[in-house]
């Protein structure tokens, strides 16, 4: 079952725009390495789940995977071959709004080489360009 909120105030939301860059959630916080989005967009709950399954094979037993994003936004669509009008479509799926710079996944307990392979495999499932990052030097 893909991720979605348990309770919401409104069933549908306006589309909005992905404005600006990530000022929060742009550092590796829990693990040692992370996957950082280089572009903005919507990341569907299905894509998040696909990434988790891909990583699960790599980190099984050895390390831990952290998912740093959650699909809070309901995305609606109008069925095919429907005439325009008659109101907004029904919620189709849930998505996370991703700004450039956000860390989407983190891994802990894996050596760097394994973490690179793991996160690059997840990156194939993402709808935007991503890069591998490690922790920032502490000051």
């Amino acid at each position, binding site marked *: 079952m893909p991720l979605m909120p348990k309770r919401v105030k409104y069933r549908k939301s306006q589309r909005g725009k992905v404005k600006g860059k990530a000022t929060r959630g742009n550092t590796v916080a829990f693990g040692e390495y992370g996957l*950082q989005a280089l572009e903005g967009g919507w990341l569907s709950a299905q894509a998040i789940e696909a990434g988790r399954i891909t990583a699960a094979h790599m980190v099984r037993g050895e390390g831990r995977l952290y998912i740093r994003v959650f699909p809070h936004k309901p995305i609606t669509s109008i069925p095919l071959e429907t005439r325009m009008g008659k109101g907004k479509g029904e919620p189709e799926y849930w998505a996370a709004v991703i700004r450039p710079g956000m860390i989407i996944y983190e891994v802990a307990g894996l050596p760097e080489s394994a973490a690179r392979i793991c996160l690059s495999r997840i990156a194939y499932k993402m709808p935007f360009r991503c890069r591998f990052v490690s*922790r*920032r030097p502490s000051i």
Partner: protein
Amino acid sequence: MAESMEMKSEPRSQIGSRAARKLRKAGKIPGVIYGHGQNTISLSVSADDLEHAIRHGIRVVDLSIGGEKQKALLRDVQWDYLGMDVLHVDFYRITEGERVVVEVPIELRGEAPGAHEGMLEQPLHQIEVECLATGIPESIRVNISQMQLGDVIHVRDLKLPEGVEAKTDPDAVVVQIVAKEVVEEEEAAASPAEPEIIGRAKAEEEQEGE
């Protein structure tokens, strides 16, 4: 102990984002120095020098501001949204024998035998310590070569160098070996297809009551 280095800086008169952007294009990083009740001075340092200091864990620098030398602590660094470039740096004036509170990274040493049976977790990657400004440890080394499944190392168990005092909660877990997670596949039927709408249930109940 983290080493110290000399860093040249120039006072800057022009402030604001446009001037800062120009400086960065010229290979310099805008910054400030403050502390000890003296005036805050806006300055700029070489991007290469600062990068070297950050990458090598240097915390204390001998900053020359227009010919005048001043010992300063690298207190804060602002990064761009991708964490690739430094945008701004804060220096804090220090004197000999002054104690400061800084964050020091934790370095794990050895290979835990229990990690094969379980999973090595490190919830804390850096701890806050109070120490002499001139004696900031480069890292706190934690030997994990004796750790078995179920073993936990707390902040209070850390062997800190002389004169270094931990400020982080002593009961906080630094590293532990936990049992491997068993991933349970969720049943699709168990969770509803749509989330509950806040307030809808109440309204419906009220309507039914009427």
